[in-house]
């Protein structure tokens, strides 16, 4: 168990509130800490005693605390007005539109999500919306004039703080109300678990104050709750486990490796070490010769970040003797684009209702080039749909990473299609390339295995890891 997992376990409510919480003035709004430490409260466990460089909201810094309390109107929650929430029928997937720069035509979606912090910006010291009326707003983001809009208030701290600073003086709630917004999801002011609860309560109150102001202006609102463990407000909260499967050019499954769980700042180094180890083993087992041409194609379920690309580039630089080219391919499952084949009448569903399945679904393997670096490919054809009620299958979007030196999208698309015809799990085609699917299977099994006592992922290193244990 890594340190973060251990901390999460320690902070999990045990059901018994610490005795030390009984003397705390925040007991009533907080409810008390019940993480199993019966004689310690949050200040005993997480407070530095009021250091100047500490940025938590804490009564041990009385001047700062009073100022913060003035901002939120104290720690009372019973004086907040009821939040107004209108019924809203949302589809299962709402596309998030950040800007309109890459589209020539309006996005034809009934409901779209926008980032409120992209609507408001500081101009000449004024925090003002880019549009004054609903139609101008929709045209600014190139969405349909009649699209319903959900404002997603979750963002990085700097945007949230800017909103908090200007919202009252500039009447931001009234400005939002004028834009005919269907829902505003609350700003996610940080709820850290391992900080004094005064900080958490302050941030909770801030979100509720923002929502109350919006609600009062007539905007339907949704509070947003999440908590995370952090080494501090500016500390990185996540740890990453990288699961890599490696295939040779002829489609053979070679190996799966697992990078260690490390802090994010060490992630690039850890990824580099993991890749070096993997490529080293492959080069030996496949007998690579100096000056040989080697092509590395990285399929990833998420966009490759700079740290990951840098790790790969460092690896390639360290390989030395080989003529290496590489491509970073993001395999996007969730996107708003569908492909239709109007000539497709569907396949009989044989479900006893004489239904047809996969109507309008393009044949498996059809692909459409959207741009020089984006291709849509259908990996689930009408025959692969299980039953008529499953509806239209979605294509997979392939997006080439910017740092790639190999950029033949036709080759890469065919390769993805080949890998999706290849699964050892079934005689049928796979809806995803096995490069991604196997990693998902491994991740799911590792997640379940991690709940077992005495489990250690190191047990997978060796013969088991080279086999297809996850099928």
């Amino acid at each position, binding site marked *: 168990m890594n340190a973060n997992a251990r901390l999460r376990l320690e902070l999990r409510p045990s059901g018994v509130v610490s005795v030390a919480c009984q003397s*705390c*003035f925040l007991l009533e709004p907080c409810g008390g800490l019940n993480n199993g430490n019966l004689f310690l409260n949050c200040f005993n466990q997480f407070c530095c005693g009021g250091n100047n460089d500490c940025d938590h909201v804490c*009564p041990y810094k*009385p001047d700062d*605390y*009073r100022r913060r309390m003035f901002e939120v*109107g*104290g720690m*009372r929650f019973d004086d907040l007005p009821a939040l107004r929430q209108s019924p809203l029928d949302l589809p299962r997937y709402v596309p998030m539109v950040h800007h309109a720069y890459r589209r020539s035509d309006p996005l034809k979606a009934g409901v779209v999500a926008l980032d409120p912090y992209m609507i408001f910006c500081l101009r000449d010291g004024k925090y003002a919306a880019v549009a004054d009326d609903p139609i101008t707003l929709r045209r600014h983001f190139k969405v349909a004039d009649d699209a319903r809009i959900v404002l997603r208030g979750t963002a990085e701290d700097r945007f949230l703080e800017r909103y908090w600073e200007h919202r009252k003086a500039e009447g931001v709630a009234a400005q939002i109300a004028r834009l005919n917004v269907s829902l505003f999801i609350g700003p996610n002011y940080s709820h850290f678990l391992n900080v*004094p609860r005064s900080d958490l309560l302050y941030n909770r109150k801030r979100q509720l104050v923002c929502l109350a102001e919006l609600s009062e202006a007539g905007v339907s609102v949704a509070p947003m709750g999440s908590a995370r463990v952090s080494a501090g407000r500016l500390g990185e909260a996540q740890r990453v486990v990288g699961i890599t499967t490696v295939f040779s050019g002829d489609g053979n499954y070679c190996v799966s490796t697992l990078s260690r769980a490390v802090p994010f700042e060490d992630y690039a180094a850890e990824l580099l070490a993991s890749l070096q180890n993997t490529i080293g083993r492959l080069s030996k087992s496949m007998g690579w010769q100096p000056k040989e041409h080697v092509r590395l194609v990285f399929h990833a379920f998420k966009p490759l970040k700079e740290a990951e690309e840098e790790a790969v580039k460092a690896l390639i630089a360290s390989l030395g003797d080989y003529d290496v080219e590489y491509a970073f391919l993001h395999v996007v499952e969730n996107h708003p684009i569908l492909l239709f084949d109007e000539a497709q009448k569907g396949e009989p569903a044989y479900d006893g209702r004489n239904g047809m399945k996969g109507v309008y679904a393009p044949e498996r393997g059809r692909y459409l080039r959207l741009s020089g670096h984006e291709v849509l490919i259908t990996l689930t054809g009408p025959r692969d749909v299980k039953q008529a009620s499953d509806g239209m299958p979605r294509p997979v979007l392939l997006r080439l990473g910017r740092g790639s030196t190999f950029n033949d999208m036709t080759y890469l698309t065919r390769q993805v299609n080949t890998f999706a015809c290849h699964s050892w799990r079934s005689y049928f085609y796979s809806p995803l390339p096995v490069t991604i699917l196997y990693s998902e299977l491994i991740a799911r099994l590792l997640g379940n295995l991690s709940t077992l006592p005495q489990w250690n992922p190191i047990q997978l290193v060796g013969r088991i890891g080279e086999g297809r244990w996850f099928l």
Partner: protein
Amino acid sequence: MGENVLKGQVKDFKKGTDRTLKDMATPTLFDRPDIMSTVYTAAPVEGGVTKGDRLEAHAAADGRSVHLVKGHVVVARIEGDGAKSLLDALREPGSPGVVTVRVRKVSSVSGFIEALVDDGKGAG
């Protein structure tokens, strides 16, 4: 003097002015003579309070008393009619719900505390 320096000075001056205006616009309890001039008697809850200490007064959740807090620990409680005006001020909508008090006297026998709202001028 360079233009950038002059611009920086203008910016600093504006920041200072803004800060002062903000401070002046911040409502306090100090404009309430009934609250400022009252000597509050608080019953001790925890020890460790000495004359001259600055404590924070918070309205208790039950709405009937005022807690005097040192750090996060409730060290004393102001109850009854004596707390009423202070309590009402602390519970006003939009009020920060906290004010600093300075300990004027601690009874050596009972441990009862006499405190005044601190106006930041060291009085009390």
